[in-house]
């Protein structure tokens, strides 16, 4: 198929665009499909990304977790001496405490909200908040200091830095706001130094949930993990990627929320594919008499393939362009909403390829019909 513009390009374009109403209807179908697919997969991507965000953002090669822990938000209580034991393992450069514990927060108006207290070692900063928008991280050294995300100011009734709040009946003070650290559980994170976290959650001084391990530069994290497992058989060890995936998969596969999003996303893809294919197929079929005329005139099959595939490509370009723009607008509009919709460029490219594939598939199905036309049908 020649790529130089010619009469086939013109015929393909005019077949689509000459009748403005029909063109609009064709595009609406594809735009709707692309938008649906983008938003549904964007919701799923947002969900998965949010679940594992803390793991992904934490600068730890290995995560030491309680036996059987399936997700970061479902931790087990482990003794801190495990951390000291790990420090003696060959290949471990650092081992820091980390906590992720749900707590009750009392709003200023008397209402209650669930929060997740995230405790980390302020001295190393490993596991601490990123994207600090207001305040100073050093202020977390104050005994009751916490940092929260400004996305949840209204939800938690917090308006400003310095405001005191009540967590599990204990006083805490907001010393900073992050920007864009979402929670997928509807329990906003309160980042605090490990000591403050223990104080707010009632954890004993010698207890924690996780140990964040940095391996030596020349060490193989998997080999170090094997040595730790051998030393501490009652503890699980995962690489960062493994624990990230484990946390995401737990919510995606074993919970209704995750599974319904997976199903909705799959349905979005299927409905999008079907609508796109059906729309383009119908558009091609509307032109069947003209293809029959071309056949009667002696047009070779390759000529007809060329026109129909070009038609599909044009519809895909316009439909995807408009659909992804609308989806980007929705993503932008939802950035401060409770549900994260993410549309990374890789997903956009994937959806673009899927749109082209769907249009090409519809074209191939149409081609079969077009090639089956009896050229004598033009005489009827």
């Amino acid at each position, binding site marked *: 198929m020649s790529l130089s513009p010619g*009469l086939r390009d013109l015929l393909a374009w005019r077949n689509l665009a000459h009748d403005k109403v029909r063109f609009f209807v064709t595009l609406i179908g594809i735009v709707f499909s692309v938008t649906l697919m983008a938003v549904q997969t964007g919701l799923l991507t947002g969900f998965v990304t949010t679940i594992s965000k803390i793991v992904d953002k934490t600068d730890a090669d290995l995560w030491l977790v309680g036996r059987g822990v399936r997700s970061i938000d479902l931790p087990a209580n482990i003794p801190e001496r495990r951390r000291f034991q790990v420090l003696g393992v060959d290949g471990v450069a650092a081992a820091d405490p980390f906590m992720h514990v749900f707590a009750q927060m009392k709003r200023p108006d008397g209402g209650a909200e669930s929060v997740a207290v995230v405790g980390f070692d302020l001295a190393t900063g490993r596991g601490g908040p990123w994207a600090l928008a207001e305040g100073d991280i050093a202020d977390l050294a104050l005994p009751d200091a916490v940092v929260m995300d400004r996305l949840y100011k209204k939800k938690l009734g917090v308006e400003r830095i310095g405001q005191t709040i009540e967590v599990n009946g204990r006083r805490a003070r907001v010393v900073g706001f992050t920007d864009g650290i979402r929670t997928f559980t509807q329990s906003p994170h309160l980042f605090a130094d490990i000591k403050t976290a223990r104080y707010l959650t009632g954890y004993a001084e010698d207890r924690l949930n996780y140990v964040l391990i940095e391996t030596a530069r020349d060490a193989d994290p998997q080999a170090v993990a094997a040595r730790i497992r051998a030393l501490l058989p009652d503890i699980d060890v995962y690489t960062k990627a493994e624990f990230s995936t484990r946390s995401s998969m737990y919510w995606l596969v074993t919970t209704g929320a995750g599974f319904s999003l997976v199903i909705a996303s799959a349905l979005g893809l299927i409905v999008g594919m079907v609508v796109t294919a059906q729309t383009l197929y119908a558009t091609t079929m509307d032109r069947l008499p003209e293809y029959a005329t071309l056949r*009667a005139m002696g047009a070779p099959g390759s000529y007809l393939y060329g026109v129909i595939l070009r038609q599909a490509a044009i519809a895909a370009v316009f439909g995807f362009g408009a659909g992804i723009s609308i989806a980007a607008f929705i993503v932008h509009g939802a950035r401060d909403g409770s549900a994260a919709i993410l549309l990374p460029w890789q997903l956009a490219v994937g959806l673009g390829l899927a749109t082209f594939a769907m249009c090409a598939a519809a074209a191939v199905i149409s081609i079969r019909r077009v090639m089956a036309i009896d050229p004598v049908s033009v005489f009827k």
Partner: protein
Amino acid sequence: MTALVEVAQARVVYGTGEASVEALKGVSLEVRKGEILMLMGPSGSGKTTLLQVAGALLSPTAGTVRLAGERIDGLTQEDLGRRRLRHFGFVFQHYNLFPALTAAENVAIALDLKGVPAARRRAAAHEALDRVGLGDRAAHFPSQLSGGQKQRVAIARALAGEPDAILADEPTAALDSASGKRVVDLLHDLAKAQGRAVVLVTHDPRIVEAADRIVHIEDGRIREAAEHPLPAEA
């Protein structure tokens, strides 16, 4: 005149078993260069089927078809398409123009099918429209043309590829008398001035005077084939 198409003992049967219909029952016909041949007969007599067989659109169930000396019955649809493209231009009763293309683009498409480069295509399309008297309608879409003008665009399209024969199915059926006469005069001039064969299927008694030869078909058989007693002047 030499024979461009030779149909010998062609039988065409549609369907199978008891529901089958024999549209042609052993028909033989020659189409000669430079002549206007009219196929006439009542509806369902088989004249359009004969045009399709002669025009390499339909392979007969039995019998042979030669085109420019080459036997073409039994070729695949793709191979028949190549022969049609090389030898024939078609004019249809309902014009069959592409509504999304202008008159010039409709004509140019016949040339594009033959792989004529864009610059030559444009010039040849305009020349063909000039020949049918529609040079000033080149940029009009079919919806902006009258029935007669549409049929002349269709003739220009059939002509543009410089075919050996133009095959026309009821080209005047949808036209008023004046437009019909103009179309037939045009086809007549083409046959005489350019030595092309013109085969018309028609019911229209108003146009028979233009014929060199008239073949009457009835019930799938040629009832009468005669040189026209008063051939029109070139």
